[in-house]
């Protein structure tokens, strides 16, 4: 962590413009998708396994009274408005994700920054140790755990949440009948959609905690202006001092 008695590390250009813009568009999208999603969920606050919802038999795996009003958009029971908001931002999330995919392939953000390497595999255990000790080094490259977290969101959770979202659409079910079956049926897909939402919220919590622990000014600056100050002894290309 920052130690003011030591000399300052180099200030580098860390995040490309495409990365920064897509990051903030996603932040806004996910905020509205989460709260309008909870509004939609409240219209039938139960989760099932399989293709249908058991009314006269029991295939529910989760049922609650509903999420509190302060967690939904709008703040009153209003499925219609929740859907308007949710489907609007869903289009934005998908469009931004596709744009990000193309841009990140072109500017090599995917290969250079996110794709884990053999070196990451070797450094995984030391990196876990460093994180547990809160010895968070500001390096040019993401650490193995960062790659796993960001890669997990971008290559696992985002595709999953988009595909299971599409499973909710009867029109898309006719276009891609195998898609809901891949998840075990439409109601299972709805359950997966919900679970991915929980995982994204967990990611957000850890993401926020890491920013605070790693030095919020430097971390937020890098995703706003792109500039990032390295730890004093951090070498080019190394995650670990």
């Amino acid at each position, binding site marked *: 962590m920052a130690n003011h008695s030591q000399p300052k590390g180099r200030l580098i250009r860390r995040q490309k413009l495409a990365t*920064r813009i897509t990051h*903030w568009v996603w*932040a*806004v999208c996910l*905020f509205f998708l989460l*709260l309008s999603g909870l509004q*939609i*969920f409240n*219209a*039938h606050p*139960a989760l*099932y396994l399989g*293709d*249908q*919802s*058991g*009314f*006269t*038999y029991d295939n529910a795996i989760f049922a609650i009274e509903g999420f509190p*009003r*302060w*967690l*939904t*958009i*709008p*703040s*009153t029971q*209003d*499925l*219609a*408005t929740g*859907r*308007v*908001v949710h*489907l*609007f931002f869903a*289009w934005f999330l998908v469009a931004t994700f596709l744009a990000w995919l193309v841009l990140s392939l072109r500017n090599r953000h995917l290969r250079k920054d996110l794709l884990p390497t053999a070196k990451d595999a070797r450094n995984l255990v030391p990196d876990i140790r460093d994180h547990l000790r809160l010895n968070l080094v500001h390096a040019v490259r993401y650490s193995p755990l960062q790659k796993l977290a960001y890669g997990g969101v971008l290559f696992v959770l985002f595709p999953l949440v988009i595909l299971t979202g599409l499973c*909710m*659409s*009867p*029109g*898309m*079910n*006719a*276009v891609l*009948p195998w898609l*809901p079956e891949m998840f075990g049926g*439409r*109601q299972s897909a*709805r359950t997966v959609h919900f679970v991915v939402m929980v995982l994204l919220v967990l990611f957000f919590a850890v993401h926020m905690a890491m920013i605070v622990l790693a030095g919020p000014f430097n971390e*937020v600056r890098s995703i*706003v*202006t792109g500039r990032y100050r390295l730890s004093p002894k951090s070498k080019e290309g190394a995650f670990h001092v």
Partner: protein
Amino acid sequence: MSKLVLSRRSLLRAGLASVAALPLGGCEAFDFLRERDNAMREFMISMNNLTYKAQRLLLSADQLAPEFSPADIRQDQHPNGSIAPDTEDYLTLQAGNFAAYQLEVDGLVERPTRFSLDAIRTMPSRSQITRHDCVEGWSCIAKWQGAPLRQILDQVGVKAQAKYVLFHCYDALSRSLSGDELYYETIDLVDARHPQTILAYAMNDKPLPIANGAPLRVRVERQLGYKMAKYIRRIELISDFSQIGLGQGSFWADRGYEWYAGI
């Protein structure tokens, strides 16, 4: 150049600040989106029209909704919305076990026709085991049998100006000072002519129960449940629905739901 960078930076900062402020305001901050004529809501809805256009591009006209096997029928179809209409006309019909029922088909057609229930029952029929997806989020699998709407449209001859099929229903889901607000729904001719779009009179090999829309309900299998009007009184071919109800094309669309419910 430095000016540009600065303004970009301040823009990003402003964006960041507003994102950070969102949770503080609580979700009531977005309750203006409930207002029907709010410009932001209108904008969001117009973006949602993309869904209709995209699905019409992706879906060929006759592409079927998934069908299931008899083993997948594990319960009765869960009734929702109106389950026991109490309008006078309906109660009279119901008292006579729907023997006097006649389906009127008129509007922009060459030969306006009345069909008795027997006439519809003796037409070539289609049976399908499909999943009914409610906008609320639940799903139910049932077997539906009925006369393809396409067949009825061909019998009456749809005029070239017709763009939508309007279902007038017997049930009033809400009442206002001006009287019953009867359920109605519209679909475009692509869905109306779809092979799985049937006027169903039987469910799970039994006559259609009252709770599920007796004597006739429509199945529109590539859309959500609220499009599948129950207790159909009359079918009218129309070119535009701006003068019907509140002008949005269906009972629920008038109440803020999407007219196209393929999502």
